[in-house]
């Protein structure tokens, strides 16, 4: 690895925050409004609590790890952590599991990107064209430096804050307050389920720790992780507020791209229309970043697990596997949505949240943290 190819924890979390926009906009409105109705925007804020707890546990694992004599050991990445907690063989098995998971997520996001473009903008265009175009860009970017990716994410992040802020302010005129108020909590089981669903989007943050050997300041994991959790919760809440406020929760449940539809309704003083085009542009960049993020992670797991001298060697096979997987995942968009919203979410929850907690418990029992 190039010794200059380092990023800060802030940059890693910025990468993650930009990537999170894609699943938040896609999955949040439909699933959470289906479960919580009018109060769904508030439920999105509750997701911050489990997210912060997860960040605190992971921070302890990555920064307070001790050896047998009780001395602090520097953990380089999640890969190193798994080896130290579970030993060589089980650790390797788990790393392969995380590798497969990250490749699967890359394939899923790539396919969803293609399907979304077809359903929103280019209705009769071939799917493979979009997948190949995206992967050609990803292929060359993934062979580049992680530090360049981090700087790119910083620029996009600031741009996103401006665009998203502008969109939310513009959408205020379309929001019917009866659709988002009063907030009621009648069904605690549905609210818990909605929080779990929303949390299963966020807990992909656990994968970021596999890029730990590129990060200069691992000690800031807690600080920037909590910022990211709060930001993701607020963005999720605003997305819910705009969509349910514009259409009502009953309508949001049946719309194919509710947030996109809500943006289509924006009309500022009968002068500014088609604001959704600005968001689509950003959305495509976020799609590129999320696929790139998973490919960076999977290639780095390959590098660490198979003792490769360069991460770049793993990029070509992974990109081609992601392409094949994206095509093999589903025959149509409806089954792909079921796979994404019901099955992958549960995998996210197991590998992204339950498993790190389990690792923490084991490390605690062995007095390693």
């Amino acid at each position, binding site marked *: 690895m190039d010794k200059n190819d380092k990023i800060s924890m802030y940059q890693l979390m910025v990468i993650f925050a930009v990537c999170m926009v894609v699943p938040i906009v896609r999955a949040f409105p439909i699933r959470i409004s289906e479960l919580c109705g009018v109060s769904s925007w508030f439920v999105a804020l509750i997701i911050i609590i489990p997210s912060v707890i997860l960040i605190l546990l992971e921070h302890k694992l990555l920064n307070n790890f001790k050896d047998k004599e009780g001395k602090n050991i520097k953990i380089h990445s999640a890969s190193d952590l798994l080896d130290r907690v579970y030993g060589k063989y089980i650790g390797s098995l788990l790393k392969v599991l995380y590798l497969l998971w990250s490749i699967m997520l890359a394939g899923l996001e790539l396919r969803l990107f293609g399907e979304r473009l077809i359903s929103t903008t280019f209705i009769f265009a071939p799917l493979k064209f979009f997948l*190949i175009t995206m992967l050609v860009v990803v*292929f060359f970017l993934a062979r580049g430096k992680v530090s360049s990716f981090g700087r790119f994410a910083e620029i996009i992040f600031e741009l996103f804050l401006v665009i998203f802020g502008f969109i939310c302010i513009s959408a205020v005129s379309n929001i019917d307050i009866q659709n988002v108020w009063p907030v009621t909590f009648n069904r605690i089981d549905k609210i818990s389920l909605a929080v779990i669903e929303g949390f299963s989007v966020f807990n992909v943050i656990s994968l970021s720790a596999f890029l730990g050997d590129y990060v200069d300041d691992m000690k800031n994991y807690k600080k920037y992780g909590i910022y990211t959790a709060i930001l993701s919760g607020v963005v999720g809440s605003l997305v819910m507020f705009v969509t349910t406020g514009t259409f009502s929760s009953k309508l949001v449940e049946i719309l194919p791209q509710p947030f996109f539809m809500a943006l289509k309704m924006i009309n500022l003083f009968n002068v500014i229309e088609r604001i959704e085009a600005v968001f689509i542009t950003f959305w495509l960049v976020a799609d590129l970043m999320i696929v790139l993020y998973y490919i960076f992670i999977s290639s780095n797991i*390959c590098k660490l697990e*198979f*003792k*490769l*001298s*360069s991460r*770049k*060697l*793993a990029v*070509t*096979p992974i*990109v*081609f*596997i992601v392409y*094949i*997987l994206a*095509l*093999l*995942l*589903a*025959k*149509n968009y409806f*089954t*792909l949505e*079921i*796979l994404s919203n*019901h*099955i992958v979410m549960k995998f996210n929850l197991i590998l992204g949240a339950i498993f790190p907690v389990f690792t923490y418990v084991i490390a605690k029992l062995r007095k390693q943290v």
Partner: protein
Amino acid sequence: MIFYLLLLILAVLLDIKEIKNKTKADIIFFVVAIIIVIILGIIYFLLGEKIGIAEYIINVLNLEGM
């Protein structure tokens, strides 16, 4: 299929520059990974239109109603 192979050859040619002066582990990993890619490619071009992972999982878990 031909387009897929062409892209794969181009990508491998780009990587050959990287492989020069590399360790045995690098070369073994790369060769095995490319073989896996070719096998997956063949599976897709033979069965791609007939199978979908999502449909298979939905049938197994009985999730049609969702």
